[in-house]
């Protein structure tokens, strides 16, 4: 899969070009392309003057970054404590089974990705599932898979 990386210069221009901007730049790249393309990491390393190994290290250390392209719909299942005790794990199992992939994976047709996230700060409406930035609260095993439709 090839990607147009023409947005990169604009992203680099938003931040001071020194090593301390690494995480912010990667955040913006992740947001733009929904993953960190290999070529983008190479460019980031040279623009910010950071060793490629350090870029790779940061890109794999933090949860927010992914090195593989994401599906059209990213299903983020909150597994924070409040969501867990209200059945978050059961919802995760069910969505995983429904889509036939595990958390962290993307379906073969690039339609869905599942991610787990440890608390999104919406504990009062646990359990929470976020589908492409739309928050769904009080999800139950009865209605979880319905969120994936439409």
């Amino acid at each position, binding site marked *: 899969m090839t990607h147009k990386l023409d947005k990169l210069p604009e992203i680099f221009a938003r931040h001071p070009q020194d090593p301390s901007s690494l995480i912010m730049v990667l955040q913006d790249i992740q947001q733009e392309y929904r993953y960190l393309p290999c070529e983008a990491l190479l460019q980031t390393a040279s623009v910010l003057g950071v060793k490629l190994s350090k870029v790779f290290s940061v890109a794999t*250390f933090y*949860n927010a970054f992914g090195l593989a392209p994401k599906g059209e719909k990213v299903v983020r299942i909150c597994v924070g404590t*409040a969501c867990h005790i209200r059945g978050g794990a059961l919802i995760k199992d069910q969505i995983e089974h429904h889509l036939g992939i595990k958390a962290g994976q993307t379906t073969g047709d690039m339609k869905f990705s599942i991610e787990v996230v440890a608390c*999104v*700060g919406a504990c009062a409406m646990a359990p929470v599932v976020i589908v492409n930035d739309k928050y769904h609260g009080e999800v139950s095993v009865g209605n979880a898979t319905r969120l994936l439709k439409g």
Partner: protein
Amino acid sequence: MRIVKPKQLEQLAAGYRKTAGKHKKTVTVCCGTGCLAKGAQKIVDAFEECLNRRKVKDFDVEAVKKTGCHGFCEQGPLVVIEPQGIFYTKVKPKDIESIIEKSIENDEVIEKLLYTNPQDGRKIEKYSDIPFYSHQRRIALRNVGKIVPSDIREYIAVDGYKALAKVLTTMTPDQVIDEITKSELRGRGGGGFSAGKKWRTCRNVAADVRYVICNGDEGDPGAFMDCSIMEGDPHSVLEGMIICAFAVGAKQGYIYVRDEYPLAGIRLQKAIAASEEYGLLGDKILGTDFSFSIRLSRGAGAFVCGESSALMRSVAGEVGEPRAKYIHSVVKGLYDLPTVLNNVETFVNVPVIINSGADWFKKIGVAKNSGTKAFSLVGKVRNTGLIEVAMGTTMREIIYDIGGGIIDGRTFKGVQTGGPSGGCLPETQLDLPVDFDSLTKAGSMMGSGGMIIMDDKTCMVDVARYFLNFLVSESCGKCVPCREGLYQLHKLTEKICEGNGTEEDIEKMEKLSQQIVVGSLCGLGKSGPKPLLSTIKYYRDEYLAHIRDKKCPAGVCKNLIAYRVIPETCTGCMACVNACVYQAITGRKKEPQVINPDICQKCGACAAVCKYNAIEVS
């Protein structure tokens, strides 16, 4: 406009209050994460659409305020009509027309939108009369849910930046530090270290450059107080930081915002820009010689970055790996320079202390634990939401008076505080006053303030397993006890949850835990075994039930439970058959269904959809 004299600030506040006063009423619509998910934006849109259609005397769209979290997320979307303080819950877009007609054009109250007190079924009209709010004492959350966070004038109108003006014009840095020290304000991030002492140490280090960092990482799952403050009252965070910077002599500050809080980041960024425009941040603040600027630093999803040295490395754009330190970060922090790191809630308390005085602040709370503490009250409690109480309030008051007790009338089993670094406390500890020292003594900790209520349907072994799993995936992996030790603890809890544990395993876990506590490099590992140890301490019987009887009393651990259809109750409606994604349920229409235990994955979907309670867990 740029404010160059403190007096202008007062004029601005008065001016804005006057303009706002032309509306006979104002409406606040809660736009916290919870209410937004429940459709708060549609409520705002409905107001706009409605007000475009009909003219209301002395009222227009500008009087409809999108505010931060009101706290009572359970009842959202929430709409409050001021100045009466009429509190409408679970509002739908179709209700807006009648709200405008009855409660704004006239002074009527719409009965059906009012909150019903579950104790007596009585409708409660006013905000302040609802038990959820009446037992609270709001200092850190003083403006959250009251002002429009994206408008700096709203903050200025409620005496915002007044403390900053006072500090810059009438106080010396030493006086500021003395006042904060005298107030006995302790860091609200978990450890509870004296803020004043920290500032003093930082100021006393000989250095040309010092930093102030606001920790908005709030990684504890189940906590969202700081999130709500950053989203709902970003300027008070900035004001606290600027005062701190003046006191310690810093020129540059950073706010480290957790990645999972995108809205908080946007609001803070906007707030920084606005305060710079008003001359409250940046060069020559309020026309004085003091300059300070703040940069936003977004986290990228790592719990360990709540640890000070890891956070500082993350701010510098590196991997958030803690550094072992026998020199504190307040002396040698960001870029090895002296750095004050406090969390959001701590900074938010600062302007109040400056305005109202240390003596006033000390009167709130209990000895050595002055002030209030915000909590997110979540889990199996009826009124979930964001609360703030005076230190020393008991668990019982929080859970029963504010929280309204356990959901579905179930029994209370435990409360978890302090997140993955804290512990679970049982019913016997319900009268424990909630403050830093009491919680630590009981084997838990304050943490940033997540309070997760558990009922008899919560398995404590599973809770311990859950936290260990969390920590295993969040450990940075630098030191052995944390990386390998927590991993092995998690394996052992898994073994018990699967019904393969032995009694020796409990002993083994306790022993290993002690070594992890002693041996780990940073706080994550040192406190990591706490959830496990506290559950073993208070719920040993439950562990033994898993081990000896191969039973999970709460009906949670999949290997130890079975789902069964009660034939006498089952109506054969087939709802469960459709709900079961594993196709484990078979049977004919209008006849009792059967669950095939070999296929059943124990997801509980059937029980969730069954209207007749015909599915039991054993």
